[in-house]
């Protein structure tokens, strides 16, 4: 096309530095698909050495939680009426109150949380109950028991973990997070913590543990995600 029409000023002289800068920035940004996540992890680890009050005000793409839910609003927790039901292939199905749950032998751990979408939260302090303890509270499992359907109060969220998977040393049903009772958006009063698997296995607002003899695909697994969601070894990672 014609360079300029008569009424317009001449195109500015000079070198196309802007075009180069644009292409360079796009290239730099796209290359961060490779180095961005390791860098953030490194910075986050380094940030862990800072005092909590300081690190709290630093925006950290990897250090912060994102709240995922599938059917708003979040379930509410009423200690007076809430019960955790443990049933299915157990000898003595029970309903535990929150207080009874907290009366069971307590486990504490520090573990990382990885979301399948790429964000992670490092060094989360959890307090809760191991699954073996919970199954004992229901009299132990009956023959044929293989897995637990973890049913959320947030319908229709459900996810299944095998008993073998739930016996890894850092799997728990957590009621405390970072030294305080689990907040509503994190699944109050209890959620599954399964650090070796992606976060969608960590059902929040758990209402029922239904012991079964088979693994059914859970909410996200019906939508294409892997049933065995090992961090770094599933879902394309």
């Amino acid at each position, binding site marked *: *096309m014609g360079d300029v*029409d008569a*009424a*317009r*000023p*001449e*195109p*500015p*002289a*000079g*070198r*196309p*530095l*802007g*075009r180069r*800068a*644009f292409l360079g*920035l*796009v290239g730099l*940004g*796209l290359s*961060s*698909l*490779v*180095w*961005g*996540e390791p*860098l*953030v992890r490194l910075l986050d680890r380094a940030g862990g050495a800072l005092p909590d009050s300081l690190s709290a005000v630093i*925006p950290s*793409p*990897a250090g*912060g*939680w*994102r*709240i*995922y*839910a*599938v059917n*708003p*609003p*979040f379930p509410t927790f009423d200690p007076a009426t809430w019960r955790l039901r443990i049933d299915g292939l157990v000898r003595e199905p029970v309903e535990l109150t929150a207080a009874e749950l907290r009366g069971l032998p307590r486990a504490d751990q520090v573990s990382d949380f990885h979301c*399948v*979408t*790429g*964000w992670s939260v490092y060094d989360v302090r959890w307090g809760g109950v191991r699954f073996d303890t919970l199954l004992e509270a229901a009299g132990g499992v009956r023959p044929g028991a293989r897995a637990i359907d973890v049913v959320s109060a947030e319908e229709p969220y459900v996810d299944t973990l095998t008993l073998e998977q739930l016996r890894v040393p850092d799997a728990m049903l957590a009621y405390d997070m970072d030294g305080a009772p689990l907040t*509503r*958006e994190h699944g109050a009063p209890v959620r599954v913590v399964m650090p070796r698997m992606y976060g969608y296995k960590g059902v929040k607002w758990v209402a029922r543990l239904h012991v079964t003899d088979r693994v059914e695909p859970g909410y996200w697994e019906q939508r*294409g995600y*892997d049933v065995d969601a090992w961090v770094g070894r599933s*879902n*394309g*990672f």
Partner: protein
Amino acid sequence: MPGSVAPTASRARRIARFDATERTLHWVHALAFLVMLGSGLVLYVPALTRLLPDRPLAKAIHLATAVAWLAALVLIALAGNRRTLARDRREIERFDADDLRWLRGRPAPQGRFNAGQKAHAIVQAALAVLFTVSGVLLWLGERDTDLRFAGTIVLHDGAMFVAVALVIGHLYLALVHRSTRRALRGIVLGDVDAAWAARHHPKWAAAETPGDDRV
């Protein structure tokens, strides 16, 4: 030429800076950015998630706005004044000796865009590409594990932090800073005060033929 403003008396002579295509491009960008920032922050910040727990709704707004934004850009490129857009691009991507002096903080006469505005436009254009690529990858990654990368969300978030910092600076200069806020009229109504233009963008103001301003 924008025809939305009746010519005012000669006491304030004005010259046209941005035509309808340029202004539409700017405001489509601005509006889409704010809606996607708001809905994105709801998805991102737990405190906001608590206020607005409807994640599927926030996500739907975010995605619909992204699609509408891209469609609007295509529409502007097709139906807008392409000569104007080509001129903008020419002006923005070239830096002359005065621009480089200006960027080093020395006084130097500037064209229709000063060197800072050019640099800002370039970074924003790169961010638009990066937001789009990482956003599309996030969307595809939910459907195809081969397109799931750990760095995608880091790029999307990182672009957001850079963009927010730039937009805050942009809003300060456009709305608050005394010597630059007079430019606001240009992006809202299309024209700017000629005397102001002669002070801040002399190379451009001089090139606009005197007496041939938009009145």
